[in-house]
């Protein structure tokens, strides 16, 4: 009994030891962990997959837990980098142990998606109608405020099922920032944030969760990142921009909105792109950032991170357009390159 028990214990110990090591390589690759935004997750998972294939020494493990989570975890220092679609507020930055850099990686659009049998993409929504739907004041799909702009569409009198994010989200921040900008009532009653006190609706976790619920629920309307909407072949609304045109979210209309913002980019890259000027620009766009400490705690990880960011700003940007994220404008990339040189370990630049 004793012998068998001892043997069992030894085998168990070996199993645990094995399990703790990498089966493919004796000395496992360096793992750099990041967490945050779900908005750019399709792009990031592509980036990290390709980067780890071409740079076998390092793995970037990215978990899409929401922008709020990205900020929370980078603040607590439990991850090596964070990701967010909402810039950190000054208040949030004050809680950090050290200065942080916002590295813009892509520009995305937030699409308003719906699930209405027989109505494809292109339902026209005015800013007012959109705000009233999300305030719970418009509850039926055939409400005159929707129908009057969509004379051809067959809108049934079905209930509007509103779907929003249940987690802290940069997508929510971009979307509520837009509603805040266009609707005084929204600004007064709800406000802007990564998670807000929604007047009505269902919660879904992540962009994945919201598109999942919208796809599963007839009569639903929600907001998700453009790439999610397109990949899932969801019907998208055309929103009226500030110059009075109804514009569908697309790579072009997003780039149009970004072009204007490039000229006024501040040094810390924290800028809002909603309700941007331009005849063809889509009004609900935003930057998404990786959050990186200026002073790295671990030299190897810091170095890997900086090399990756440099790759992302140049080679990586070529992956943006096929996944429907607008690339960062050239003039901004130059500014980011300068910013990356600030990342350091014990005062020494890691670039």
């Amino acid at each position, binding site marked *: 009994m004793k012998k068998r028990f001892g043997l069992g214990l030894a085998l168990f110990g070996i199993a645990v030891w094995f399990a703790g090591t990498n089966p493919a390589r004796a000395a496992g690759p360096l793992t750099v962990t990041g967490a945050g935004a779900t908005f750019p997750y399709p792009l990031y998972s592509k980036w990290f997959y390709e980067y780890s294939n071409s740079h076998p020494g390092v793995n970037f493990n990215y978990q899409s*837990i929401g922008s*709020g989570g990205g900020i929370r975890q980078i603040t607590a220092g439990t991850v090596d980098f964070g990701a967010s679609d909402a810039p950190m507020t000054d208040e949030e930055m004050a809680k950090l142990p050290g200065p942080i850099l916002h590295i813009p990686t892509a520009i995305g659009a937030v699409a308003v998606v719906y699930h209405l049998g027989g109505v494809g993409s292109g339902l026209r929504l005015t800013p007012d109608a959109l705000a009233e739907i999300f305030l719970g004041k418009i509850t039926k799909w055939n409400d005159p405020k929707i129908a009057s702009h969509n004379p051809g569409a067959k809108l049934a009198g079905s*209930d*509007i099922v509103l779907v929003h994010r249940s987690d802290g989200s940069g997508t929510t921040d971009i979307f509520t920032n837009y509603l805040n900008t266009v609707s005084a009532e929204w600004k007064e009653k709800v406000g802007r944030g*990564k998670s807000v006190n929604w007047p009505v609706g*269902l919660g879904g976790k992540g962009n994945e969760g919201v598109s999942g619920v919208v796809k599963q629920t007839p009569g639903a309307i929600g907001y998700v990142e453009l790439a999610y909407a397109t990949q899932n072949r969801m019907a998208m609304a055309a929103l009226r921009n500030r110059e009075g045109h109804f514009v569908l979210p697309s790579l072009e209309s997003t780039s149009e909105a970004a072009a204007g913002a490039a000229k006024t980019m501040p040094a810390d890259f924290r800028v809002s792109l909603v309700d941007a000027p331009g005849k063809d620009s889509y009004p609900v766009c935003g930057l998404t950032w990786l959050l990186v400490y200026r002073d790295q705690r671990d030299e190897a990880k810091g170095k890997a991170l900086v090399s990756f960011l440099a790759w992302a700003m140049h080679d990586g940007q070529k992956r943006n357009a096929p996944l429907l994220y607008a690339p960062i404008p050239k003039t901004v990339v130059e500014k980011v390159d300068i910013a990356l040189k600030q990342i350091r370990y014990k005062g020494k630049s890691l670039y």
Partner: protein
Amino acid sequence: MKVGANIKDFLFEKTTALFALCVLGLTLLLFALLIRESLPAIRKFGVTFVTNSTWDPVLEEFAALPFLYGTLVSSFLAILIAVPLGVGSAIFINEFAPGWLKTPISFLAELLAAIPSVIYGLWGIFVLVPILRDNFMKPVSRALGWIPLFQGPVYGPSMLAAGVLLAIMVVPFILSVSREVLATVPQVQKEAVLSLGGTHWEMIRIVIGQHCIPGIFGATILGLGRALGETMAVTMVIGNRPDIVLSLFQPGYSMAAVIANEFTEATGDLYLSALVEIGLVLFLLTIVVNLAAKWILTRMVPGRAGR
């Protein structure tokens, strides 16, 4: 020699006692950590934490009532469905099922209990919710939509969906405890009723009425304790909306679900603390419920003392 043995015996006893102390320590540590982490929220909100219903991360106003409500309503709904089914099938297995059928049925029920929560959730999202929505909620809403319980638009993910899924999950527990309770009835009494010319049903009614009601109540409370803390499956089908609405067709939110969804992303310290306090409330609630169940059952089912 004798002394040596005594020392070894002493050491062995104290070693095992030390490990027991560790287990006790871990439990206390869990308690202490929950209290420490929820202190900021307790200080800030006090009692209003469980009486208010605003959950507003933007304004940093937090209160647990909608989650408490969602947890309680979904669990009670589950119990309401699960108790008749669990007790009924326990009676069937113990009293009516032919011998060859008893083992397979109870084996299958045990399998149900072994299925991981996340798989129930997966099945809930893709199978149960669409079935409920199209075949139950829509017709009921059309016919009885004026009753407050069934009011409002039909979403699919809802308090009802969570309750039904939870019922499926807790039924095996109620079934197995009910079988234990039924087994405590003396055979003589059953035979007495039958020999007086009573039917099977009358035998069950009389015997259960006399013997088993408190035990079955204990089984119910135990099932309730399981349902209260269930996380993944509920998170996936309840709809995640912190509202207190009477209608079972509307989405709700449970305490476990809000922790699962928002814990990693709570940006402010107060936000995180509020989530931990929800955990603490949930912890206390399940403690009370489980202890009540244990208290009832140890009195009703003598052989059950250890559990």
